[in-house]
């Protein structure tokens, strides 16, 4: 709930709360891990105060290591500033990335609204759009694989080569399907119920003999994203004591050591 705030000393009025800021930051994603920075625990602190003619918001971000990729770090910092600046009555945003090898560079660039090229100068060539698209495609590939593997495991009669005929209406309702629809939407792929599930990022289907390979490649992408997401969360918890409390559980790729989901670990017997 928002309420009108008045600073008695300055009589400045604003109606944005810390909760509003946090909800706005829910829409900022780590492009590589395909998760909101709020779920990952990357928001270190946020503060709303009286500013000039409105609210002054100060947000600090933190990352799992000092050597996380500077291009991703910049994207998250500048996206965060953009969504907060767009909130009504916010007139000043201080957005800082803490403890990163490029903190000085990125914070100065974000403060000056210098843009990607203005921030990284000779190290930038064009834009980070292609980088975003690369990871949107990977996120779609992983979401697609989760759905198809879920279906394969649940139906013993299905064979891999027939997976190219599965349509969205064949998928059971649930978080995997919802996630896939979101990723399809991000790529501009059709979301109609009769759409084929197994497609590349341009919506092209696969001939039957190419399907096992397409599924295997998609699987390696899903494993990679899940593995990175959990490793990054773990590193953040190691680096910043108590930061685990700011992270939400990630069921995809969860392991027994993650506590929030107790999976059995039974190993295979070798039958030569």
């Amino acid at each position, binding site marked *: 709930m928002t309420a009108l705030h008045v600073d008695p000393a300055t009589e400045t009025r604003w109606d944005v709360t810390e909760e509003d800021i946090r909800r706005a930051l829910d829409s900022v994603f780590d492009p590589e891990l395909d998760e909101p920075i709020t779920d990952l625990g990357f928001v270190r602190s946020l503060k709303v105060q009286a500013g000039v003619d409105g609210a002054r918001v100060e947000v600090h971000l933190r990352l799992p290591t*000092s050597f996380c990729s500077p291009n991703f770090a910049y994207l998250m910092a500048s996206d965060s500033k953009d969504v907060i600046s767009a909130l009504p009555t916010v007139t000043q945003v201080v957005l800082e990335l803490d403890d990163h090898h490029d903190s000085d560079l990125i914070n100065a660039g974000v403060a000056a609204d210098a843009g990607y090229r203005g921030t990284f100068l000779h190290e930038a060539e064009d834009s980070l759009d292609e*980088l975003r698209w690369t990871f949107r495609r990977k996120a779609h590939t992983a979401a697609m694989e989760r759905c198809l593997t879920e279906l394969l495991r649940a139906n013993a009669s299905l064979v891999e080569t027939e997976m190219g005929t599965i349509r969205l209406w064949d998928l059971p309702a649930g978080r995997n399907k919802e996630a896939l629809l979101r990723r399809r939407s991000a790529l501009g792929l059709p979301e109609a119920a009769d759409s084929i599930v197994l497609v590349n990022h341009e919506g092209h289907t696969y001939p039957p003999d190419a399907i096992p390979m397409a599924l295997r490649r998609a699987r390696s992408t899903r494993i990679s994203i899940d593995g990175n997401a959990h490793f990054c969360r773990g590193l953040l*918890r190691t680096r910043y004591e108590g930061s685990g409390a700011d992270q939400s559980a990630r069921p995809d790729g969860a392991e027994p050591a993650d506590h929030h989901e107790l999976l059995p670990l039974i190993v295979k017997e070798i039958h030569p």
Partner: protein
Amino acid sequence: MYSKDGENYFIVDAHIALWDARRENQRNIHGKQFIDCFYDYHRNLSPDAEQWTYEEFLYQGGERLMKDLFEDGYVDHAIFQPAYLGAFYDNGFAQVEEAYGLAAANPGKLTYNHCYDPRDGEAGLDRLRADHEKMGFKGVKLYTAEWHGESRGYKLSDPWSYRYFEECRKLGIKNIHIHKGPTVRPLDRDAFDVADVDHAASDFTDLNFVVEHVGLPRLEDFCWIATQEPNVHGGLAVAMPFMHTRPRYFAQIIGELIYWIGEDRIQFSSDYAIWTPRWLIERFVDFQIPEDMTEYAPLTTAQKKKILGLNAAKMYDIPVPAELQLPDADETKTGPRQPERADLAGVR
């Protein structure tokens, strides 16, 4: 050598370092940030009993290295893979002279690989020739995110990278170990992308390209290029310790590697001193793919023996006792290996 249940394993630790990250050697804040990042890796992925203090982690020295690897760690042979990091440490991060001296004093146990930076141009080529004449190495370690003046990264497909590969070819340096880092120019693209390795491996088919960390965090990109290029190999540095905290993820990494590149091109490494080999070897020999992961066949003892030492020994001509040797698998040169053993459809 490690022995368990009547099986003997010849161990080659294919990625170790002798570093000095002590405060007096840190050139700037980045020297501290770099070793802190490594220390967090160490703390996050090690079992409690294997964790070192921060002071221990900053510097080990040759004596401790020899003890951790060869007295306590079952290692038969280890290979230095130096990362110089001159922009972060006054005397470099990897202690090149000390490591070379240690290898020269223990030739049966240690192999010294060198490092170079293609951005050093002609002068660097002269130095590479001189260094090679003195040290006679067969391999080099390249860190593509090394900072160098205005530049904070390079690609293996850059023209100067190719000049250096041509020189490696002439000198008989045949093993190129690659470690991808977060920065590369331009920053527009994913710095961990391994497409440049694909280019170099296609154009220098007589050189071996060992991608360290099996391409992590881009396992999928690595598997895809490695399955097509028979001279691309995978080093398990950083991947190994996931056995402890994330055994299911580790099982998937190994399962994918066996499928895409086969059992003859995967090399064990502890990434010493981030981790120590003893516990990694013990656990890997005991490790098995979880039963519910029907998409992967169980790991065989022969596969473990190859990964733990035989594959790297073959690449570096390290003598292996005849009774411990194994023949290569009968696998295709390119494309998925053993698809019938590692396939969802195949298990039904």
